[in-house]
């Protein structure tokens, strides 16, 4: 029998089928949108660069560096993305876990261990030697960078480095008739002399908050004359009596010569206090010098490396910063070209000068601007001292950053508040470091 209208069952089925098409299309559209890929059309390769220390002047400099690179390499474009300074590791970690990493990143030597453990960075040794770079880059920077990795390979370009220095208000010292400091005794007396709490002027600004550990090492281990966190027997040097004594002198600075609010001060707060004229001395790295110059004049700022210990040992804090490429990059050749540009004389000279870093390219170290910068001159002169020893930091240890970053911070603040003794604090963390080192050795045997 021929039906004029379809059977109700068929009509319902057809209606259901038509209605089911809508969510099906919706889901497909969602899936397709999620799989968006970037085709490299018309031969231009686009690289993605993530910066780990986003600040306005640094962004401008980095974009200028990228422009210089793109001019010489017309087939390559670099897209820049800035990550916040205090949480960039979280973002990179998430990207690694989800397989959405970019091509290039700007890590410091202290970041290498965590990234290598996640298998994120590509080793550069073969390309480095194939390009003949070992003759063009300072060998000590290359070695320091290799030492920061758990397997001793080269993972970031070793062409720029930070050095620990102390900045001070040279104009305040002149007004008070005090000489430029050359020893720890000078420092102790001048910091006290410059403090005038009733007018809100303090002699020093201490880093009590986030990231306190690098400054602790800078001020305590230099005074103690110890250049390593693990001695030759593999035991932690944190509870060495010389370190404890130097740490006590450092802790005593709080509230006597610093603002009470420094308990929670991070690097931004410290830098702002110094630039705003609330502090006479600031311990940080040469990378701050360009920033300080934006609000102060050169004759207001004096620079010195932390002073030698009593026995004359000059401990230097050096941290290489550079560029790295991700293992999963789809354009490794082009990414390497960018890395090479940053190590070349043209790229290294611009980038080191703009950022205030020590240049690793040997040809750049002879350029005039290096001699003219007081911060760099102080750092390089200290390095030339025959009793100079670079500080050996165990970045290869996976737990190093969580112990010195997260675990130690609350106890450090208790120490500053006087509720935990320096000896107990250092003993506790010497034990923690020893245990972490033991676990690492057991696991990698």
């Amino acid at each position, binding site marked *: 029998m021929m039906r004029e209208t379809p059977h*109700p*069952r068929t009509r*319902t*089925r057809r209606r*259901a089928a038509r*209605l*089911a098409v809508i*969510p099906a299309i*919706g*889901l497909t559209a969602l899936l397709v949108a999620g799989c968006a890929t970037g085709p490299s059309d018309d031969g231009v390769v686009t690289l993605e660069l993530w910066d780990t220390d986003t600040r306005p002047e640094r962004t401008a400099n980095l974009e200028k560096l990228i422009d210089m690179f793109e001019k010489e390499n017309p087939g390559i474009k670099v897209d820049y993305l800035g990550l916040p300074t205090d949480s960039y*590791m*979280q973002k990179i*970690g998430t990207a*690694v*876990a989800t397989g959405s990493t970019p091509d290039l990143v700007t890590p410091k030597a202290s970041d290498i*261990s*965590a990234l290598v*453990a*996640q298998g994120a960075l590509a080793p550069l040794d073969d390309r480095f030697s194939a390009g003949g770079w070992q003759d063009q880059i300072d060998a000590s920077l290359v070695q320091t960078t290799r030492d920061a990795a758990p397997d001793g390979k080269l993972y970031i370009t070793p062409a720029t480095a930070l050095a620990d220095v102390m900045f001070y208000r040279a104009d305040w010292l002149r007004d008070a008739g005090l000489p430029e400091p050359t020893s720890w005794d000078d420092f102790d007396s001048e910091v006290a002399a410059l403090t005038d*709490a*009733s*007018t*809100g002027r*303090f002699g020093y600004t201490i880093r*009590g*908050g*986030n990231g306190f550990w690098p400054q602790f090492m800078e001020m305590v281990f230099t005074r103690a004359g110890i250049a390593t966190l693990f001695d030759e027997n593999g035991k932690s040097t944190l509870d060495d009596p010389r370190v404890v004594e130097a740490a006590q002198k450092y802790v005593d600075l709080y509230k006597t010569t*610093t*603002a*009470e*609010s*420094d*308990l*929670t001060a991070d690097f931004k707060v410290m830098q*702002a*206090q110094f630039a*705003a004229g*609330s502090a006479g001395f600031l311990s940080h790295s040469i990378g701050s010098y360009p920033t300080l110059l934006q609000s102060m004049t050169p004759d207001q700022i004096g620079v010195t490396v932390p002073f030698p210990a009593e026995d004359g040992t000059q401990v230097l804090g050096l941290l290489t910063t550079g560029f790295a490429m991700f293992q999963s990059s789809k354009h490794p050749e082009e990414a390497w070209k960018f890395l090479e540009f940053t190590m070349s004389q043209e790229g290294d000279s611009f980038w080191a000068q703009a950022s205030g870093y020590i240049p690793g390219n040997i040809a750049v170290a002879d350029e005039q601007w290096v001699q003219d910068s007081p911060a760099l001159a102080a750092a390089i002169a200290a390095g030339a001292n025959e009793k100079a020893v670079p500080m050996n930091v165990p970045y290869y240890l*996976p*737990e190093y950053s*969580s112990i010195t*970053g*997260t675990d130690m911070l*609350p*106890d450090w*603040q*208790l120490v500053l*508040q006087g*509720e935990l003794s320096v000896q107990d604090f250092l003993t506790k963390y010497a034990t923690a470091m020893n245990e972490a080192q033991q*676990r690492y050795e057991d*696991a*990698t045997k």
Partner: protein
Amino acid sequence: MTASATPASRRRTRSTAWYPYVLIGPAAALVVIFLVYPVASVFYYSLQRYNVTMPFYNGFVGLGNFIEIAQDAKFWRSLGFTLQWVVVEVGLQFVFGLILALLINRAFRGRGIVRALVFSPWAVAGILTTTIWLLIYNPTTGFGHYLADLGLVPYGTSLLSGSGTAFWAAVLAELWKGAPFFAILILADLQSISLELYESADVDGAGRLRKFVSITWPHIRSAVVIATLLRAVWEFNNVDLLYTLTGGGPAGSTTTLPLYVAQTAITDRDFGYGSALTIVAFVILIVFTVVYLRANRFGRENA
């Protein structure tokens, strides 16, 4: 055709039985992808030791993480502080929210604008809230500096840098943001109270307190109960304010349990232990919610 009528109708029911499932399919898929899978993976990782920077150390540990939590002094301290934070915050927000609602319930000129202003702190994003309060508490640019100029406090001090005062500084910031939530919910119910009730209470000679207890409170009770529950859960889970304002406070004095989870899982990348901590927080909140709603006889008509 009675013999074939029954099979046909039975067949029709069977063939269209899948129809509703197709319609809810996409929604169900989204729920599974964005709710069930993440929660299940948290349960999975809570039974593992999983730190992405120490891959040689990862592995199944069963209930090992939970045993470690029971012995973790930092966990107990953060739990205690979280309870203190929730009780103080929700209590103060309720009191100030109620006062605000009662105040703006009366008719006066400009009431519309005042209501919008009262509600505006709630509309401000969390990060903006902390930025505003960080500037207020900043020793160089904030109130502290002006008070020091007047000689009331020493220079270079800040409420945020004292272990005891940091808590109240954070409480104030969150109170500013959270009280409007209570105010608006209570206000909605207050508006529904008929004025005749108050007039007849006046005729009967009822005082202010009596009017509040017998007329106002029963009307707003269910709104208060649900608002308190919501705010308690949200304050328990509050991370953004404490993370940005105090970072867990000087010497860990303002670390709540969720903040401890964030430090463990995201900063230290120890996802196994962080997942176990999250499970503990989840269980606590579920138990609290059930008990709380039961105790308030929520959903049943007012006795």
